């Protein structure tokens, strides 16, 4: 919300820098030599067949997964085993999950004000004001005092987006935000994400929604087998995919 004094310094830095990142689950090589720079304000859509490592990749950015080799620098801070750095990065990076992961024992409003109060040390009144602001942005201010269990999937996901935004993150990660939703609810969530994109938020979105990729993304990243196969502007990506595997993937998902 408030502009940081050092903003212009960050401006010149990429929001996320991944260099030669490798990750193994035991013997299984999930991420292979990932190189990706995300510019501030950029909207990136990551797609690829299931098991291609796309979720793992974005989960490495806020250290929900640990990478074993290579460098990840987020907002000028390198992710290491240093807990301090992880804390700094998590404060700046918001994340929205496939299964929403709202806290079921708290109301919508309580879900939103919890981290601002306990992590950002805001007063309750201030946190509530911000929460209501974002709940209005995602168009469900009237649900503030309900419990997540009383909301539809689409509403829950919008609350999850609002909850992340209440921490005023500089980067937002979306891990298949619409995959667990009934078809009629996908649009309301995508609309919210499009509005967020219009505010200039840096976004990394793992999704199968190719329509969203076409309208919103600055670049589309295609992954397969733990590797980034192709990175391109959406227009180029969909109309003239360079790589054979990209062509195959697109022909499979665009058939219907």
């Amino acid at each position, binding site marked *: 919300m408030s502009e940081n004094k050092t903003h212009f310094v960050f401006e010149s830095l990429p929001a996320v820098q991944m260099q030669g990142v490798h990750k193994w689950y035991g013997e299984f090589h999930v991420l292979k030599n990932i190189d990706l720079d995300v510019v501030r304000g950029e909207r990136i859509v990551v797609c690829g067949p299931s098991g291609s490592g796309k979720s793992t990749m974005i989960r490495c950015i*806020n250290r*929900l997964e640990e990478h074993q080799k290579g460098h990840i620098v987020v907002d000028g801070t390198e992710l290491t085993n240093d807990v301090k750095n992880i*804390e700094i990065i*998590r*404060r700046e*990076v*918001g*994340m929205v*999950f496939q*299964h929403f*992961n*709202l*806290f*079921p*024992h708290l109301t919508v409003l309580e879900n939103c004000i*919890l*981290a601002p109060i*306990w*992590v950002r040390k805001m007063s309750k009144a201030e946190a509530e004001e911000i929460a209501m602001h974002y709940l209005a942005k995602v168009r469900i201010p009237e649900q503030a005092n309900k*419990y*997540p*269990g*009383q909301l539809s999937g689409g509403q829950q996901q919008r609350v999850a987006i609002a*909850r*992340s935004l209440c*921490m005023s993150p500089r980067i937002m990660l979306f891990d298949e935000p619409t995959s667990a939703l009934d078809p009629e609810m996908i649009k309301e969530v995508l609309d919210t994400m499009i509005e967020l994109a219009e505010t200039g938020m840096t976004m990394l979105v793992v999704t199968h929604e190719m329509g969203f990729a076409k309208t919103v993304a600055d670049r589309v990243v295609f992954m397969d087998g733990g590797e980034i196969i192709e990175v391109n502007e959406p227009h180029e990506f969909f109309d003239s995919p360079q790589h054979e595997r990209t062509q195959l993937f697109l022909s499979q998902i665009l058939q219907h």
Partner: protein
Amino acid sequence: MTMSEGKTDYLSGQHPDLPPPITEVGVVGWLRQNLFSNWWNTGLTFLGLYLVYLIFMPLIQWAIIDADWVGDSREACTSGGACWVFIRVRLDQFLYGFYPVDEQWRVNLTGLLLAATIAWLTVPKLLGKRYAGLFALVVFPVIAYLLLGGGRFGLEPVETTLWGGLMLTLILSLVGIVAAFPLGILLALGRRSNMPVVRALSVAFIELWRGVPLITVLFMSSVMLPLFLPEGVNFDKLLRALIGIVLFQSAYIAEVVRSGLQAIPRGQYEAADVLGLSYWKKMGLIILPQALRLVIPGIVNTFNELFKDTTLVMIIGLLDLLAIIKAALEDANWLGYSIEGYTFTGLVFWLFCFGMSRYSMAIERKLHTGHQR
């Protein structure tokens, strides 16, 4: 549900919805459906009623109708029913043990204070729960200790060896519950910790205490522990028993709590992490509130057991309710009234346990926000 409304005249098509006939719903409907639906079920119902009559009539006859209630010695018990005179005469001892009669007001006052504190904690309308919790955990124990033990503020000191009866049972179980619960939570968290040393210590602690019978623990605390202590150092026997009970029960609580922790989906941990919550905030604000809610039945079960297990202190010479009743039964003046004694003990224990379980059901209902995930 009055039927008289049905008598009014209505325009065609305007007839209001009437309640269903009384023979279909409510008590009568239920009886019909469940007890008298056909000749076979009707027969079974009557047979059941007859059995109930066979079993309970003599009990009621003995315990209430034929019972002797007034008097002050066994001579008053002549009618052949239960001799409640025995309980009446000894009630003071059953409640306070050998606590000096002149000082019993201190126990009463503590009990009153306890009841008020519990009411403050549990009645939803009373505000300031945070202060109530603080009072219950910090202020009340100090007051209770000073009041019961005495020796300060002009109060006559009363040795814990004189404490007994229901008072002792309640002290043992309340202190046991209040101290074992947080310790159990810490152990459960320790057992799921990422830190190998913390985890190993927690596992070792839990498995050690779960592996020995409570009787052994009590014996150790009263007989063996003094052997290891330097000459002249002597803790109170009650305190030693309490420590034993607390450590023993905390291991059980830990396992119950751990089962709750395991039931919380990983997404909850991740969502808390992603919001930047530290470990203790994550656990305290997100994970434990949900996990504890899930295991309320298990926790209450453990408390229930703890309450009844306090009777085992009898074997190290502490006179809890059961022990003091047993002792009273040895009295030559009252030989042969063990049925009365044990019935009374059972009833008192049942009342407390039943109260606990009703309360736990009430919180379960209250905390249920219709969700999981």
